[in-house]
């Protein structure tokens, strides 16, 4: 067992355990913190796979952006120290059953499936390569999806402002 293997299993355990705690704890603020650790674990797995750029994006966008947004919305909508109401036992039981069946089905399929590995030359996922292909307009370039995503982000920005704006009748 090498050091890399031990680190991988530690990251996997961190991800899955904190993910489980994030959906089961009844303290909503703790759920957000467990989600934070789960996302950090996933970023660690990206680092372990040597996809440094994706790991950095994961930390910046998810850990630095989305989790902070979620924590702020918890502060704005929740009374301090209040626990979430207890779950209905029947619903919990059937959810566990459905999720367990789905998990078993997916894992059985996974164990039976033989993946085909390509025989091409490996491409290093460096920032230079990513940037060239991201903005490329030739075959295999991602310039069009890039532009569409930027328009989507603009639309989301405008939509957020319009939704969160106080209506005129309220302020007047």
């Amino acid at each position, binding site marked *: 067992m090498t050091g890399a293997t031990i680190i991988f299993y530690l990251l996997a355990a961190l991800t899955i355990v904190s993910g489980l705690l994030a959906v089961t704890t009844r303290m909503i603020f703790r759920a957000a913190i467990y*989600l934070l650790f789960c996302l950090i674990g*996933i970023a660690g797995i990206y680092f372990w796979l040597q996809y440094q750029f994706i790991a950095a994006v994961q930390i910046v966008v998810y850990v630095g952006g989305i989790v902070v947004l*979620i924590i702020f919305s918890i502060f704005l909508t929740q009374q301090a120290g209040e626990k*979430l109401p207890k779950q209905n036992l029947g619903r919990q039981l059937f959810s566990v059953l459905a999720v367990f069946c789905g998990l078993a089905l997916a894992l059985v399929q996974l164990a039976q499936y033989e993946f085909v590995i390509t025989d091409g030359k*490996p491409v290093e996922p460096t920032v230079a390569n990513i940037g060239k292909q991201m903005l490329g307009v030739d075959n295999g370039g991602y310039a069009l999806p890039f532009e569409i995503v930027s328009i989507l982000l603009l639309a989301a920005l405008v939509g957020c402002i319009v*939704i969160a704006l106080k209506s005129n009748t309220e302020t007047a």
Partner: protein
Amino acid sequence: MQPGLYHILFISTALFFIGVYGFFTRRNLVTMLMSVELILNSVNLNFIAFNKYLWFDKMDGLFFTIFIIAIAAAEAAVAIAIIINLYRSHNSIDVEQTEELRY
């Protein structure tokens, strides 16, 4: 055992179904949004693992992951704007009490 593709696919499958469980059982909109984030992250992990172990001569999985992260950020921002607006008008973000569009 040396970790490989199957180990990472196991993690992402587990994360996906953890997110589905949270989505089924939670009744608070913010925690449901957190479950959706878990599901999206498991998909990202899948794309990266396939790119790393099966199609290492291309970077398509990596680009899909970047675009999914961008769309997830936009989705989270819009969802939280809706949730905060809902809290303003209903004083609650429990899905059981936001039933005006139900019928």
